[in-house]
């Protein structure tokens, strides 16, 4: 349980963040300059708030009224930064060991070998940071932070400096860390697909204020959240199960609830979970099933919400899970689609992006 009420004034920017977190992973989502990194720096103790308090698991880390300001090295809050900030003069093993060796034996809740295996960094031990690729650096940085057995892990846009392919390779490691180590995390990003892959619990931050907290699919019905989310690119993240593999035809057949979904071929065993993303503006709507069309995916569902965002309409369709579809106002009118209508959501297999499968031991 984390109780945040922090204020920070610098120049004419004012941050006023209030929220309490009791979920394993919170996605902190907002445009650049909203104050995400400032908030994390205050939680870690690297930046001093002007006023307020911060309570983690009942312990006061900061309280301006009581005059408490715990030094960062005593907070036991781990941080993974956007540019890994590995120590350039130490090799990978010494980087991983840096915080781990400072812990007393009984504080070492995670085993060194466990983290090394989880993040697959064992073969890099003798390398120096400048010899690593961007993705390897971030894995080592994540391991270094995890090994301090933090009571809270802050991830400050850890994937922002990586290209899309690398991002998708790292995310499963974060998911593993979340599922296996049960360390609470605050994950900062302005990419909604990264956040939804890890958690549905988000906090929206804009212009120094937390404007909403809760489940993404519930918040999206609020206009101010919607406008912000839409401007950053709306993505649907679907967690599906692999049913059949068709390597000769280049696709995998998966299921989502009772419906079938054809996705690009993914390396995963039958029965395993895979996550995919599809952008809201890559989905088309139809009032009936379309025959004789190259589009493979036609998920049927009921419209349960329609919101206007500028000139676009955002339709929430319940296809077993919530699917966001972005269309023009005109097409909704022409098709006479309203709340409660049954619609088919059409999208090409090629417009689906894959997350690599996670192999949970």
């Amino acid at each position, binding site marked *: 349980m984390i109780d945040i009420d922090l204020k920070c004034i610098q120049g004419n920017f004012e941050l006023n963040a209030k929220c309490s977190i009791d979920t394993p992973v919170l996605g902190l989502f907002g445009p650049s300059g909203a104050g995400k990194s400032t908030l994390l720096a205050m939680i*870690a*103790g*690297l930046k001093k708030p002007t006023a307020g308090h911060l309570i983690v698991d009942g312990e006061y880390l900061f309280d301006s009224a009581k005059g408490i300001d715990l*030094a*960062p*090295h*005593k*907070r*036991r*809050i*781990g*941080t993974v*930064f956007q540019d890994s*900030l590995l*120590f*350039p*003069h130490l090799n990978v093993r010494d980087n991983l060991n*840096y*915080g781990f060796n*400072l*812990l007393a034996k009984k504080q070492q809740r995670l085993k060194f070998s466990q983290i090394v295996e989880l993040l697959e960094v064992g073969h890099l031990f003798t390398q*120096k*940071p*400048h*010899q690593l690729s961007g993705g390897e650096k971030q894995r080592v940085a994540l391991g*270094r*932070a995890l090994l*301090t057995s933090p009571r809270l892990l802050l991830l400050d846009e850890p994937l922002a400096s990586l290209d899309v392919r690398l991002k998708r390779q790292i995310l499963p490691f974060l998911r593993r860390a979340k599922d296996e180590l049960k360390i609470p995390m605050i994950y900062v990003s302005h990419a909604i697909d990264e956040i939804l892959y890890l958690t549905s619990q988000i906090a929206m931050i804009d212009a120094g204020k937390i404007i909403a907290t809760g489940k993404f699919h519930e918040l999206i019905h609020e206009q101010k959240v919607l406008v912000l989310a839409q401007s950053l690119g709306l993505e649907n993240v679907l967690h599906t199960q692999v049913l059949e593999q068709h390597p000769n035809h280049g696709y995998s057949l998966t299921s989502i609830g009772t419906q079938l979904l054809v996705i690009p071929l993914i390396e995963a065993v039958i029965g395993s979970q895979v996550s995919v993303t599809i952008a809201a503006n890559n989905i088309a709507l139809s009032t009936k099933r379309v025959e004789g069309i190259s589009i493979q995916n036609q998920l049927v569902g009921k419209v349960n919400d329609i919101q206007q965002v500028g000139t676009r309409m955002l339709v929430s369709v319940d296809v077993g899970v919530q699917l966001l579809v972005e269309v023009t106002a005109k097409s909704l009118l022409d098709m006479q689609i309203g709340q409660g209508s049954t619609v088919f959501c059409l999208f090409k297999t090629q417009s689906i992006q894959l997350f690599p499968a996670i192999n949970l031991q």
Partner: protein
Amino acid sequence: MTASMYLISATEIAALMLSIKVAAYCTLAICVPGIAVAWLLAKKSFLGKSLLDSLVHLPLVLPPVVPGFLLLLLLGSQGVLGQWLQQSFGISVAFTWIGAVIASAVMAFPLMVRSARLAISQVDKRLEAAAQSLGAHPLRVFLTITLPLALPGIVTGLVLAFSRSLGEFGATITFVGNIEGETRTLPLAIYTYTQLPGGDNAAIRLAVLSMLIALAALMVSDWLERKALRRIGQGLKHD
């Protein structure tokens, strides 16, 4: 011109060894205080910071005779501190090689501080923040992150200080005089020979020696610096 002009005499060797001894002790003596003052100036803001900064740099801009004279007033046998040292501990530094070390240390200190300060302030502060968030106390952060990363600049500072000490003349001769075997370092010996009829050959020999030592110091410094940069993965950029 005879073969004897290439032969170095025992007194010349004594001057050479004394110079190296004084420079080595001087470098050792200013190493820790130099790093400490550099750290203060690079990282901290406090009352009187610009005064400290100016005081440290003063020997760099003053005629060397002035610091030498001030040292004599302070630490000489009639000086305030000198008398106290003499009476309390029976120590006298005036007109001894230790005095020569003190004179060179004062003159070389600003060079060391300038170099180390620049190096310390150039260490990425975010790396230090990362170390702190991993549970390291500020002193540990300094010893394990800041210092190793600033090492190339600190080594440069130490070599500069060593070379400055080898060349120290004005402050030394003013404070501890020109006593053969005790305070007559290379520059003082060269000066002495130039004042003696027929001393030119000896002066030339010592001048060549000075150049060789200075050259060697610079080469060692360059080698150490490249080695240190390689350790932090910056040396490869130029390859």
